[in-house]
C-alpha cells in the first residue's frame, strides 16, 4: 500500500528555549556550583568516612572533606550541564538522580568533616530508611490500588490510625502480634468500606469523603484511646513488638544485609506486596481491567468489564494494606498507641504515590527516598549538625509539589481518577 501523498503534517511542538531539561539542568549547575564552592569552603579538616555496616567501625571509604565536597559538587554541576547537551532529554531521569546524589554526597562531605563524628554508617542509615519507609510503602500501594481504578483515596491517614489502634488493642487483648496485624487490616478495611460506599454508591465527592473520614478516624481512635487505653494500658495498650528475624550470614552483607536480613515481617510483607501489586497490575487480567477502569471506564464497560464492582474490590483491598501499614506504628516502631501518632505520614504516603507515578515500584522508590531523607535528618542530629532537621523533613512535601508542577516529568494520574462512573 504505497502512497504518493505525504502523511498529514506532523504536529510541530514549538521548541521553547526554556524546556524542562534546561530549567532543571540550570538548577543543578547552580546547585552543584554552590555546593562545590560553599560546602568546600565550609568543610573542616577531617576526612568524611562512610562505612557500609551498621556500626561506625570497620571498613570504610574515606575522602578528604573539602576535596569531597568540591569534587561531588562539580559532578553535580556536570550532570546539570549534560542535561543541556543534545540527547539530554532521554537521560533526564538518570541525570537528575545523579545530580541529586552527587550534591547530597558533597553536602555529607561537608557535614561529616565538621561534626562530632566523621563516620557515617550507611548500613544503619539504610536500615533507618527502610523502617521509615515501611508505612509509606503500604499506604502508597493502597493509594495506587484505588487510584488506578479511578477512586481517589485521601483517607490513608485515617486508615493508618485505625490500623494502628486496632493492632495495639487486639495484640494486647489476645497477646499476639499476628492477631494484631489481622485486626489492623480490618481497621483499614472499615475506613475503606466507608470511603467506597460514600464515593461509589452515594457519589459524594471523593476528596471531601477522604478529608471527613480522616477527621472521623482520628476522633474515633483518640476517643477510644482516652476512654479505654489511658486508664488501663496493660489491658489494652501494651502489645509486643514483632520479632526481628536475623538470617545469619546474609545479615552481614554490606549495606543490604541489615536492611533485608535483620528485620521483621513487615519489611518482607511490604516488599512482597510491591511485587504482587506490580505483577497483578501489569501481568494479570485483573490488572488490565483495573487500569482500563481507571483510564476509560466507558470503554471498559462496552467490553463487559464490571466497572463498579472492580472499584469496590480494589478500594477495599487497599484498605487492608493501609491498615497493615498502620500496624507498623504500634507493633514495630513503638509498642503502644498514642493519639494522632501517625502525624501526617498518611499524607507522605499520598505524596509517595504521586511522586512514584502511580506505580508500585515507583512507590517503593519514592518511599525509600522519603525514608532516606528522614533517616538522614536523624543521623545529622546525632552527629550534632547545625542544619535544622526541619528542612530535611520538608523534603518529601516540596519534592511532591515539584512533581505535580511538572518539574519532574508529566505527573499524570489515571485519566478517570476521581470521576464517579454513572452507568448508562
Amino acid at each position, binding site marked *: 500500500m504505497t502512497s504518493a501523498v505525504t502523511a498529514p503534517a*506532523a504536529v510541530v511542538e514549538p521548541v521553547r528555549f526554556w524546556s524542562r531539561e534546561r530549567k532543571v539542568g540550570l538548577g543543578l549547575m547552580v546547585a552543584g556550583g554552590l555546593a562545590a564552592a560553599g560546602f568546600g569552603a565550609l568543610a573542616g579538616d577531617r576526612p568524611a568516612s562512610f562505612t557500609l555496616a551498621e556500626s561506625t567501625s570497620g571498613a570504610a571509604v574515606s575522602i578528604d572533606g573539602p576535596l569531597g565536597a568540591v569534587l561531588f559538587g562539580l559532578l553535580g554541576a556536570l550532570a546539570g550541564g549534560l542535561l543541556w547537551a543534545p540527547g539530554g532529554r532521554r537521560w533526564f531521569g538518570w541525570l537528575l538522580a545523579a545530580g541529586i546524589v552527587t550534591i547530597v554526597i558533597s553536602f555529607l562531605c561537608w557535614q561529616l568533616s565538621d561534626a562530632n563524628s566523621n563516620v557515617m554508617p550507611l548500613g544503619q542509615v539504610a536500615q533507618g530508611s527502610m523502617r521509615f519507609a515501611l508505612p509509606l510503602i503500604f499506604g502508597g500501594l493502597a493509594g495506587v490500588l484505588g487510584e488506578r481504578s479511578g477512586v481517589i483515596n485521601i483517607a490513608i491517614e485515617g486508615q493508618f490510625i485505625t490500623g494502628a489502634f486496632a493492632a495495639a488493642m487486639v495484640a494486647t487483648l489476645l497477646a499476639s502480634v499476628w492477631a494484631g496485624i489481622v485486626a489492623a487490616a480490618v481497621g483499614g478495611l472499615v475506613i475503606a468500606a466507608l470511603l467506597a460506599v460514600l464515593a461509589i454508591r452515594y457519589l459524594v465527592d471523593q476528596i471531601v469523603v477522604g478529608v471527613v473520614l480522616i477527621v472521623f478516624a482520628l476522633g474515633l481512635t483518640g476517643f477510644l484511646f482516652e476512654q479505654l487505653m489511658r486508664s488501663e494500658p496493660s489491658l489494652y495498650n501494651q502489645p509486643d513488638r514483632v520479632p526481628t528475624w536475623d538470617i545469619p550470614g546474609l545479615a552481614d552483607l554490606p549495606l543490604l544485609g541489615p536492611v533485608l536480613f535483620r528485620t521483621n515481617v513487615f519489611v518482607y510483607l511490604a516488599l512482597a506486596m510491591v511485587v504482587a501489586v506490580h505483577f497483578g497490575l501489569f501481568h494479570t487480567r485483573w490488572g488490565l481491567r483495573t487500569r482500563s477502569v481507571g483510564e476509560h471506564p466507558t470503554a471498559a464497560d462496552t*467490553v*463487559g468489564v464490571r466497572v463498579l464492582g472492580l472499584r469496590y474490590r480494589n478500594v477495599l483491598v487497599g484498605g487492608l494494606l493501609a491498615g497493615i501499614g498502620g500496624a507498623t506504628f504500634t507493633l514495630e516502631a513503638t509498642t503502644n498507641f498514642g493519639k494522632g501518632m501517625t502525624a501526617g505520614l498518611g499524607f507522605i504516603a499520598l505524596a509517595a504515590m504521586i511522586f512514584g507515578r502511580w506505580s508500585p515500584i515507583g512507590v517503593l522508590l519514592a518511599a525509600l527516598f522519603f525514608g532516606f531523607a528522614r533517616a538522614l535528618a536523624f543521623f545529622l542530629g546525632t552527629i550534632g549538625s547545625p542544619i535544622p532537621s526541619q528542612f530535611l523533613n520538608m523534603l518529601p512535601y516540596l519534592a511532591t509539589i515539584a512533581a505535580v508542577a511538572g518539574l519532574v516529568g508529566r505527573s499524570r494520574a489515571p485519566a478517570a481518577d476521581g470521576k464517579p462512573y454513572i452507568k448508562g
Partner: protein
Amino acid sequence: MLANDRIDLTVEPGEIHALLGENGAGKSTLMNVLYGLLQPDAGEIVIDGRPVVCHGPSDAIAAGIGMVHQHFMLVPVFTVTENVMLGAEQTRAGPLGTLDRRRARQRVVEVSREYGLAMDPDAIVEDLPVGVQQRVEIVKALNREVDLLILDEPTAVLTPQETDDLLAVMRTLQAAGKSIVFITHKLREVKAIADRITVIRAGRTVATTGPDTSEDELAARMVGRSVNLTVDKHPARPGEPVLEVSGLAVHDERGHRAVDGVDLTVAAGEVLGIAGVQGNGQTELVEAVMGLRPVSAGSVALLGKPLAGLRTRQIMRRHVGYIPEDRSVDGLVQEFTVAENLVLNMYDTAPFGTRFRLHREAIAASAAERVGRYDVRTPSPQAAVGTLSGGNQQKVIVARELTRPLALLVAAQPTRGLDVGSIEFIHRQILHERDRGTAVLLASSELDEVLSLADRVAVMYRGRILAVVPPDTPREEVGLLMAGVAPGAEPVERT
C-alpha cells in the same frame, strides 16, 4: 422527538451498505439501537432470519455485530494488543489469570494480516495517528467473531490517503464474507464503495438506491428539494469590510489543522454564512476569531486593527458579539439567574457595575426590560436560567449580545435544538442586526438557515472554503459542496 421514525433497513450478507444523511438525520441513533446502546420503542431487528434483542453491547457482540464508534472506545495509554484483548483476555493456565501477551499479540498480528490492517501491536494507542487508531478499533471488533460490522462516520477524521486505505480494508472484509454498514455524509466515498445506499433524512428512510445514482440526486435526497423560505429580507447594503481573515490556520486539540488557510471578509450590513457539515473546521474558526483558540498562522483583523492574540474580553470590548455554539456549556451559567446571565460579559462596565461593585438595581432593571423586549418566557428575571426552555435560553444569549453596540456579530449554530417559533424570532433578530449595519458572521450546519439568512454563502470543507456562492444557488449544488465535491471535479473512480 422521534429520532428514528419507522425506519426500515435491510443488509444482505457480504454487502457494503451505506447509510447517508446529514447531521441529526438519525443515522447514529439507528446504529446505537442495533448495538444495544439504546432500546427501540417499536419495531424489530432480525439477524439471519432470527429476531434479536440487544440489551447491551455484550448481546450485540454475541449476535455477531461489531461496532466501530465515531469516538473511539480505546484506552489511550494501553498498547494496541492490550486494547484488543480487553474484556476477552488470553490468559495462561493457573488461578492468577496471568496475561498471555504473546498469544494475544499473535492474534492481533493474525487478524490484522488477514484483513490487510497493518499495525504495530506494541504501539501505544495515543501515539498513533487517527487512521491507525481506527484500524485498532476495527481489529478489536473483528477479534470477536463478527458478521456485521458497523462503522460510524469512519472517515470523518481521516485524511484522503487514510480514507483510501480504509476503503481497501472494507473491500477485504467484504471478500471475507462480512457485511458492513457504514454511516457517512460524504458522497464520494459512498459512490466509490457502497453496494447499496440508504438515505435518511429527519429520521425517515427517503430512498434506497445503488451507487450509480447521480451525486446530484443523492445530494438532493440528503438535503431535500429547494424550499422557498419566506423570510422578509431587505436587500443587503454592504458597506466597508469589518472582519478580514487572511490565510488563517488553527490547530485542534489533537494537533491537526482544523482551519487550513481560510480567507474571508465580512462587510458591514452583510451576513456571511458559513455552510458545512459539523466538524469541518467551523467551530475552530469561530473560536479563533473570538480569541478562545490560538491562531497558528494568518491574520484576523477587525476594522483594520489586528484581532489575533487579543484576549476574549478585549475582543468583546471592541464591539464584537458572540453567540456560542453550545449554549449550556459556553453560553450560560445554568445556575445563575437570567439577569446575571444577561450581564455575563458586561458586569463590570457601566451601568451594570464598576470594577469592584455590581449595581444590582441597574442589572435587574435592564433584565426586566430586555426580557420583555425579547419575549423571554420566564417566571421572573431572577429565576435560574437553567429552568428556561432551550429557545428561551437562546433568547437570553441573543438579548445579551444584541443590546450593546456591535460592529461584528459572530453566531455559531444559533438555533440548534430550538422550536420553530424561537428559530423564527432569532432569525429576525439577526437580520435586524444586519440592517442596522452590523457585520454578521454566521456558522451553521443547518443549510436552510444559512441560505435564508446569508447574503453570501461560504462552504467549508476540511478546513478550507471550497467556494463562496450566492444564497439563491440551488440546494443540490450547495449540498454537493458540503459533501466535498468541488465544482468541476472529476467523476468518481470506483475502487
